[in-house]
């Protein structure tokens, strides 16, 4: 199981690096922001849903935070 987890973490890192590595020069000009302006390319798209999910995980797991604040506000954990 531990090896499986190491594999998953390695795959996640490699996928991130692959996505980032194929990008060439970092940054865009003002007129190249058409795709980035789409709602699905915003980090806060569906933020409400992610917050509700995080609340569930906060109450069931020991770890929290990272995406945003990690503690307080609920007696569920």
């Amino acid at each position, binding site marked *: *199981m531990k090896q499986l*987890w190491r594999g*998953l*973490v390695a795959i*996640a*890192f490699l*996928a*991130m690096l692959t*996505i*980032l590595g194929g*990008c*060439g*020069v*970092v*940054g*865009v*000009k*003002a007129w*190249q*922001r*058409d*795709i*980035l*302006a*789409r*709602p*699905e*390319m*915003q*980090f*806060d798209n*569906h*933020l*409400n*849903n992610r*917050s*509700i*999910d995080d*609340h*569930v*995980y906060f109450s*069931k*797991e*020991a*770890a*929290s*935070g*990272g*995406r*945003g*604040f*990690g*503690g*307080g*506000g*609920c*007696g*569920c*954990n």
Partner: protein
Amino acid sequence: MQLAKPRSIRTGLAAVTAALLGPGVSGATGEGQSETSVLIYSESQRVTAVEAVYDLNRHLKGPYSIGLTLTYDGLTGATPTGGAPSKIPQTITRPSGGTSTLVPAGQVPLDNTFKDNRFAIDAGITRQVGRLATLSFGGHASAERDYSSLGVNGGITRDFFRKNTTLGIAGSWFHDVTSPKGGAPIPFASVPTDTVSTGERREHHPGKPKNINDLVVSLSQVIDRKTIFRVNYSYDRATGYLNDPYKVLSVVQGLTEPDPGEPLFNVYENRPDNRTKRAVFGEVRRSLGRNSVDLSYRYFWDTWGIRSHTIDLYYNFHVGDSSSLEPHLRFYRQSRADFYHPFLVDSVPVPQFASADARLTKLNAFTIGLRYVFSIEAGSRLSLSAEYYSQRGDRSPPETFGTQSGYNLFPGLDAFLLRASIIHDL
């Protein structure tokens, strides 16, 4: 269908702080957005919860925008007490002493009288400062039957390098008070086996406070026309009453006693009065034609000895001008806290800290879900999602012996989450 105003990447990056600050400062389209959500959470034979959330983000005249989130949670069902199974049926008493429950032989004790309601309000305001920066402030208040919370937060973001890079820093402070019926139990005191009178339970007991300080530093970077990346570092420090007043540990017979492993009685848990949590979170989002993928990873560690890895993957399929399908996978793994003990052993010195809370042991969790979003009328969308959450833990921890060796000390958790949201562009 009304077309949403194209959002500048500026707005999108300002939302980095929105994510840091929680609700209230999202970079919504046009004049703003409202979202009403209902979530049903149901564990197999355990807790059922209903959560309703109303979320409003609105741009005001000038450089200001405001946000408001109202939340209601209703929970009921059975939850593990932390006690160990016994070969004979056990009668367990609620920490408040109000009711008792009969637990079948060989099963992990569950408190099936668990019931709570929670109301929360979060409000925030964001001010654009010049072309490149935002300032945000917000507040939080929530109340449960036995828990209350007040909090404030604030943050700042600043764009650099032709708005391709955004740095953000946000902080929050919470003051939470736990007030269980009958008062907060004394650590390691024996759990009474008899119920107490209503009058005794209604006696006033001072609440137990804790303070939580959070700091999140964020760096977002536009990589190219199709890719955006961010990395967050979060620091969270909690001090005060960190025990769960409803969790107990069983004291079991030692190896030299007549029935090794068999529970004798239960005691209340005791955790350290401070905890520092840290996390590094990385997320990349990339457009793939009309689809997009979002992959994130979090490494978490704290002063209680817990380490965890979380991988989250969303793939957004564009299935029409106004609809999308989004599968979701999540993998989670955590190690156990230094002071986690599945039980204590009679006539062995009691450790300084101990808890048998199943959330503090070694466990893996897995989520699989699907979300469908479609337009219902001009400027309004309906979002439906279903998720399955599964948790598996250490069924037989290394220190298990005697009769405890024959039991499953971590019954799996299987939960379904169903959610419906209506989103209106203002």
